[in-house]
């Protein structure tokens, strides 16, 4: 069965979607990713969709859902590298992925995740005092 690889990088998970998403693939990704987040106790998920050129409403919603699920599992989620045409399509479909962090590329997405985690730790440290 076709699957999208999920790479573990420290406390982050990296998902790069290199093929055109179809519905089953998205469902598999949803299962795999949630499982991996729990198993690895990940604090951040980075989804790179720079190679994704075609989205429909289902894939758009799945992206939102996956990000939402990761957030519930206490992992910051960043979607990076969205193509202009994909962004326009999603907006026209009325899916603006509210509550999902976005970044222009993997590098910036990583920086964003690190920042978010540092802030979290500082916040935790502050509350302990």
């Amino acid at each position, binding site marked *: 069965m076709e699957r999208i690889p999920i790479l573990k990088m420290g406390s982050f998970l990296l998902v790069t979607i290199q093929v055109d998403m179809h519905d089953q693939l998205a469902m598999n990704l949803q299962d795999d990713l949630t499982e991996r987040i729990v198993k690895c106790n990940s604090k951040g998920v980075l989804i790179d969709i720079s190679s994704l050129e075609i989205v429909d409403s289902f894939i758009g919603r799945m992206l939102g859902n996956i990000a939402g699920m990761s957030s519930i599992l206490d992992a910051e989620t960043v979607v990076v590298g969205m193509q202009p045409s*994909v*962004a326009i399509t999603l*907006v026209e479909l009325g899916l603006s992925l509210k509550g999902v962090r976005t970044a*222009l590329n993997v590098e910036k997405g990583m920086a964003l995740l690190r920042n978010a985690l540092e802030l979290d730790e500082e916040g935790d440290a502050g509350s302990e005092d």
Partner: protein
Amino acid sequence: MNGSATNPANRGNLSAILDKHESELLAQWIAEQLGSITLRRDLMKESELRSQSGHFLSLLRAAAQKNNFTDTSRPEWDAIRDLLTDVSKSRATQGFTPSETAAFVFSLRSPLLGMIQREAGIDTSATASDLNSAAALLDKLGLFTFEEYQKTREGIINRQQQEMMELSTPVVRLFDGIVAVPLIGTLDSARTQVVMENLLQRIVETGAEIAIIDITGVPTVDTLVAQHLLKTVAAARLMGADCIISGIRPQIAQTIIHLGVDLQNVTTKANMADALVLALKTMGMVITRGQKPSRAPVHEK
């Protein structure tokens, strides 16, 4: 107009008149045009008018030999239609009014009909039929001129719209990682699309993290325009760039609130300067006032 089959002799008549009196007709026609108030000496030279008229008459004579005056869409009229298209195009771009343009063909009516009458002498039945077909022919050609004029004008308007669309949506790189779109003119769906595509493309190219959309030049913001703005902001956000909307004038702020448009989730600033400061601050940059550079050397030279 079903005379073409029943009365071919008279059809030949018109063609014969054109053959016989072409130069005289041309002289009369040009005199008619020169004497008319629709002549625009300020826009066109007399020599150009003469050459156009002469060319038209010779083509008309050639076309008339086929003796078909009812259907000007037939191939023998191609040359004349091309000429009229050219004339209409050049006059439309020169700034002639529609009636001044159509007058080119319509002014031929009086000389041509006069000529037919004179030629036919007392044979009134033949004259009536000839006059009829000649008048109908000129009407058709005149209307054709008119349509071509209209087409040219529409072409000009379309082109200008296109140019405006392209010109008025530049995406400016303000600073490393900051781009700005100064919007000028009304935002409709088509323009929003262009703006959005340009902006997103530039965000990818420059790797900008912040985009400032300046709406100082947008005359009115209604719910539709606001929706278009929000769409652009959402699309930029999906790409990973934050948007700031700047240049909101007092009346616009009032309209937005009265219309109940929700801009709470979008950062807004009153002017571009504030937006730029905020953008720099968001990127963790600090602006400090340093030593002013001495201006003296510049003035010396």
